[in-house]
């Protein structure tokens, strides 16, 4: 989506009829963020700037809304997003080791992305399959029971080029 083409009234739908202009614009932000993130993989500063101009909402207000949600990112993300579960069950079964191992292997800290934009490493609190603890996810796939062996597989899976 080109931010310039964004149509506030269309996006906000019928609710728009009962709220004021400022709220309409503010209300449309999340949709706009989602679309921008779909296209760019994150929310680039210049695009938010254009959005700020387009909606005549101050940039700080836009950034404030975006920064509230974990789902929005402000720097480019890796092709593969690896999330290591740090929930209670996984914690007990050694999630920390998994995280440390991945951090060492790829030379980045949690929350960071490798320079070649291949991988972003994150943590998450319980992905809902505690029976498989410790757990990590690669994009949508879940890898459970991560012992020494599995860890190697995990690293391999991450390094594997996407088909």
């Amino acid at each position, binding site marked *: 989506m080109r931010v310039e083409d964004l149509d506030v009234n269309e996006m906000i739908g019928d609710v728009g009829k009962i709220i004021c202009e400022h709220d309409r614009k503010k209300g449309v932000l999340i949709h706009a963020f989602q679309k921008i993130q779909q296209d760019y993989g994150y929310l680039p500063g210049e695009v938010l700037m254009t959005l700020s101009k387009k909606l*005549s*909402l*101050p*940039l*700080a*207000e*836009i*950034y*404030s809304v975006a920064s509230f949600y974990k789902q929005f990112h*402000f720097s480019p993300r890796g092709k593969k997003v690896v999330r290591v579960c740090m929930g209670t069950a996984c914690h007990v079964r050694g999630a920390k080791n998994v995280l440390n191992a991945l951090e060492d292997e790829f030379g980045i800290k949690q929350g960071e992305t490798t320079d070649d934009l291949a991988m972003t490493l994150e943590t998450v609190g319980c992905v809902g399959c505690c029976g498989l603890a410790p757990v990590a996810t690669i994009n949508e796939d879940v890898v459970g029971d991560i012992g020494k062996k599995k860890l190697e597989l995990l690293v391999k899976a991450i390094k594997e080029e996407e088909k």
Partner: protein
Amino acid sequence: MIELTINGKKVKTEKGKTILQAALSNGIKIPNLCYDKRVVPFGGCRVCVVEIEGQRKLEASCATLAGDGMVVLTDTPKVRRARQAVLEFMLVHHPLDCPVCDKAGECDLQELVYEYGKPDGRFVREKKHSPPDTKGPLVELTANRCILCGKCVRLCSEYQGRGALGFIGRGFSTVVQPAFGEAIECDYCGQCIDICPTGALLNKSFKYKARPWSLEEKDTICPFCSCGCTLTLGIREGKILRSRGKEDLGVSGGNLCGRGRFGFDYIYSENRLKTPFIRKEANLEPSTWDEALAYISDRLKYILSNANGSESVGAIGSHRCTNEDNFMLRKFMQNVVGSDNMDSSSALGFSRVRKALNMVFGLKDHTIDMKSPIGKDVILIIESDLSVTHPVFGLNILKAKREGAKLIVADSKETKLTKHSTQWSRIKQGTGVAFLNGIMKVIVDKGLFNREVASGITGFSELEKSLEAYSPEKVTEITGISSEELIGAAETLAKAKSRILSFTLSPSENTKCIDTILAASNLVILLGEGPESLQIPAEYANTYGAYSMGIRPDAGKSEGKNLFDMLYVSGSINALYIMGEDPVSVLPYKSRIIKTLKSLELLIVQDIALTETAKLAHVILPASSWAEKDGTFTNAEGVTQRVYKLIDSTGEALPDWQILRNLSSAMGTDMAAGTLEGLSNEIKKTIRSEKATSNKRTFHPVLYSRGEEPDNEYPLSLVTRDILQHSGTMSTRSKTLNLVSSEAIIEMNERDAKRFGISDNSHVKVISRRGAVYLRAAVSDEVPDGAVYVPAHFPHSGISTLTSPSIHGGIAMETVRVEAA
């Protein structure tokens, strides 16, 4: 009106007010940290909780409407316990670094904790460690002192219309910051500093300068624009260290712009004059007062002894000087010299407003009402950014818009007002008259006015005839806006129940002229309204006052020589006395002015600093600055306010009026008013304020004409516009304001930049028919194609080299070409 009982006392309040407002307006204090009457209630801090009879829960009084018959208790043990707990939570992460915090001593948080707090909190948590964010030039942000009351965020976005700050992140890690945590880039009004209840937002220029309790605070009037805000100056050991606004104080209710808050240090600039100077050969040499006055006296007497002697002496007064100073100058001219040759820079501004309104309405006065925008249906702004030139008046325009007014802005440049407008008609620079005529044409053609009344007014048929040339199609051609836009604006304006038209006219802006005032007046009369619908403020702190004191060529019995005669026509006069003005820097066509001044037999310049004009003088007299003398300023509303002597004069400088008194004695005329009091009494007797009511109405049809046409050699129009950080030229001597803006930057559109091979932030040579200067360029989408925009504040940038005045009052927009330098 409703009635409720607070702490056993019956109080009345309007419907729709909160309990807190009801209490405060009846002198009952309820502590609060996130409430401010300028912004929408937030209910975030919870220290304002109160007990309401019949309700189990405590309620936040700032967010609960007062009800009829309500019984409220604000200071019970239960309430106190709750407040104590709330404060305890606030301190869990707070660093409590009061010993190194500039706010300590006047910090709301500190005071409340002192009153309600417990010595030990029950919580042991890691204190937040965040070094102060000192990236911004004037405002410093120490996030760990912030209690997230959100007042700064809301004030900046709602009230200032800027929105530079936001709550970033969520939960514990939330901080108040500009977007992306970058340096604050904003209006630098500093309003957030005043409103912050903690030491999170601080005035960087005051940092570690003094503890608040060691400051002596005194109120005086701002020396910059004609809003006339009250500044509360903090003084220690004879030096002004800071300026702030105090809630509810003065015409602005405590609101200030950045100039009033940060700009006072212009009086501490290095080239303040400390002694008189006399020119010996090519050099200016320091002298004593006696020598200087004797020198002037001799030379002036000699000039006066010639035939037509007094006719050949002129004076220029000043909006920077007090009423008393200006009145003394007039007395000096009339009683000692015997001449009416007096004028000021407002010849290119306020004088024209007065002249036009006198022609149209027969008025002998023109004031604005800063609250006039409030409650109006439509506000129409013509090619002006009042948020820049008159920031506090601008705040009221924004407020009116928030409360439902339609704001139509006809302007070529994107401004704060266009951003907040309901309709931004992006007319080409300098085409305001065509736009106004076009609006009238639509109104006349569609019959959106009372023809019976209007046709009875002198000049109506001429007006109607003159409008023939302004059909929507024609206006589209001239202004570049579509016919629909024009018709829409005309209809909105005509159908409104109430309206104001507002714009500025000043020597530093060149897209408007006397015709703009006449066209706007025609429109107002056509709609059946009077001069109160025209809100055209005087330019500077005492522009209005200087004019009223008679610093104008028509104040005496005969018509004296005016500014143009005195500064642009060599040989018109032989001697010129300039008080508090720097024509060489301020007024257009520098080279011509220099030529005229150099041809004088005697040039006396009396000012606070060594200005470009002073450098040409035969004698320079050092004057006290605005904070070094007593007197009065009259703002654009016509309100006369006291300014005080707060600090000692610099060197041997004296108040302007005293210098003139002393000079008069040296010349053998004793001024009756030897004291300030005597002078004030005399002013009261002489200057009668002629209050503005008049039923006279005359149409004065005007045709649109523009300044120089762009051509191949000079393809761009040069628009001079004020910027927010400065007011006139004196503010450019403020080191603090210069941290934000210290040179004239020429703004141009990306297309023009490409066309002329200029990149952002590079240096360019700007050439007009009158001269050339080197400036830094900024590529900006706020400005349109075909024109470049520069501010004329900075003497060293030399914009007046490029420009020229319009002697007959028409638009004086120059054309230029730009080259990469």
